[in-house]
């Protein structure tokens, strides 16, 4: 069976050592995805532990003349959508008999989610994080450690998410028999992009129902920020078949893998990547550590090429302005990452707008105040 699920994108470009583990993961995933007992356990944890469903909030002051609804993943336990994926993958890891979780993190939100589910399910947890990200997301480092995770600084390259991901994969290569790699976004080798999308699809599924209940119609546009793209793919998953709903992904201007990338292979998948003409991966730059990544999930590259989704960018300054506006006018402090989506929600043409507010901004206080 092909591992390229998304046209020419996807695949399994990994050292042979990992392939049997990916086969095992794929088989395990196929077994649990339609297993009522697994779904029930995940839903139970979602409802009683994570705080699902998250609310949908109408923000009339933020965007006068529009009806902008925020899907409040910032209100999920640990403060971001990352927990949806972490819970599902950790349950799967336990079924596969793995004792340990390894994860990468950029903003620290996925690392916190991985540490949280590991604590809850009694698994060991190791998180790789670039030392530059550790500096700019200090509170999340402390949270991970309080939750019992070992946080390992990565001193390579730009000391951010790309290097943290490479190191997490290298750790997995060395410990593959006992360890599950809990990847945080819809990137990586097959079947990870599919697993992460399915586990994040709860975001779009809930939002669709909630918006229909509130407005009696679907949104004209659904907007999400895109780093690796997991909150966006989760939101979009709810509307892929609704042709009238425009899907809009917003990348950081300095990390626009879709707007400025080319086909390349990074972290196990062929996708649209910031790379030079020789296939060497370039550095990304964003104030938002969760978007500071030169790659993107292969399904986003496919959705871009097919025209089903559109991808635009927002600058650091635009994101900061939207963040301040939401805080001042609605009493909601978003993370820097979804602030990029908010910036484009303000100036899009549509009137009925759905935005995934993927995380809260407490972790960014230092960066926001310092900028």
């Amino acid at each position, binding site marked *: 069976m092909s*591992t390229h699920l998304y046209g020419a994108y996807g*695949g*399994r*470009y*990994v*050292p*042979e*050592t*990992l*392939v*049997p*583990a990916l*086969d095992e993961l794929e088989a395990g995933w196929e077994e649990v995805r339609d297993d009522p007992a697994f779904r029930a356990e995940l839903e139970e944890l979602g409802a009683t532990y994570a705080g699902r469903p998250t609310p949908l909030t109408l923000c009339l002051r933020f965007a006068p003349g529009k009806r902008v609804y925020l899907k409040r993943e910032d209100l999920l336990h640990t403060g971001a959508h990352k927990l949806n994926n972490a819970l599902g993958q950790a349950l799967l890891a336990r079924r596969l008999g793995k004792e340990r979780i390894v994860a990468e993190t950029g903003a620290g939100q996925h690392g916190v989610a991985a540490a949280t589910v590991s604590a809850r399910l009694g698994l060991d947890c190791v998180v790789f994080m670039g030392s530059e990200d550790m500096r700019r997301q200090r509170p999340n480092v402390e949270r991970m450690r309080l939750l019992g995770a070992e946080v390992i600084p990565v001193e*390579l*390259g730009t000391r951010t998410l*790309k290097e943290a991901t*490479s190191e997490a*994969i*290298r750790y997995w*290569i*060395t*410990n*593959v*028999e006992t360890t599950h790699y809990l990847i945080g976004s819809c990137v990586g080798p097959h079947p990870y992009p599919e697993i992460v999308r399915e586990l994040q699809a709860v975001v779009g599924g809930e939002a669709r129902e909630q918006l229909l209940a509130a407005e009696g119609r679907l949104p004209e546009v659904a907007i999400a920020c895109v780093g690796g793209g997991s909150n966006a793919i989760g939101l979009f998953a709810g509307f892929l078949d609704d042709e009238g709903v425009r899907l809009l992904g917003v990348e950081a201007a300095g990390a626009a893998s879709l707007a400025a990338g*080319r*086909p*390349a*292979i*990074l*972290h*196990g998948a*062929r996708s649209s990547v910031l*790379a*030079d*003409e*020789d*296939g*060497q*991966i370039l550095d990304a730059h964003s104030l938002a550590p969760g978007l500071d990544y030169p790659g993107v999930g292969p399904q986003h590259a496919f959705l871009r090429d097919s025209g089903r989704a559109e991808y635009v960018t927002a600058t650091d300054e635009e994101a900061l302005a939207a963040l301040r506006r939401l805080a001042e006018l609605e009493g909601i402090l978003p993370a820097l990452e979804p602030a990029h989506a908010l910036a484009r929600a303000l100036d899009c043409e549509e009137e009925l707008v759905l935005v995934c507010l993927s995380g809260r901004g407490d972790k960014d206080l230092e960066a926001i105040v310092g900028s």
Partner: protein
Amino acid sequence: MTALVVYLMSGPETPELAEAAVEAGADLVELGFPFSDPLADGPIIRKAAERALAQGMRTEACLDCLARVRKRVDAPLVPMTYASLLEAYGWERFAADAREAGATSLIVADLPASERPDLRRIQLVAPTSTDERIGLAATLTDGWLYLVSVTGTTGVRAEGTPALAGLAARARRLTDVPLYAGFGIGTPAQARAAAEVADGVVVGSRAVEVAEDGPAALRDYVRSLRLALDS
């Protein structure tokens, strides 16, 4: 006689280093084409790749380096690289141009046998590989099968390679192609231990480290491996 494979990173000094390695007893030279994000590599080769990229060793320059090595040595030469370089250069074009520059085959560290099976190359198998995957890799491989001796990345290890014997025994049952062992082999003693179960031995990280001290140091090192393998 056990084949001795020496890995060197592409760079301005590589032709001279390759010549020294072959003179001292290397039977084959692997030539690293550096990639910015080498998932299969430990710290030594990663650092060497970073340095090579900083020196401008992009694909064209590496092919040129390969051609210059070819002029100096008669031993088989095998570029070892990552899929992103081939994706950018064109898969078939890369293979053709490498052959044109003197390569006898190709190793792509992050391209398991099940991806792009049509690209002729030396396949790798690991201690984690199932018998089915070893069989597939052996069927597709170009000349010999690369046994990844450890569950891990490249790099010198103190502890040896306990998983190698089992992997080699499984591979022997499944195929008649020659088996070369690499990853985690650096000292003459480790090379000799690997040679008891494999037809060839690959040294990478340690060779790259020694090569930093120049051709004379590399010659001494390769000679010590050759002696250990022949004794």
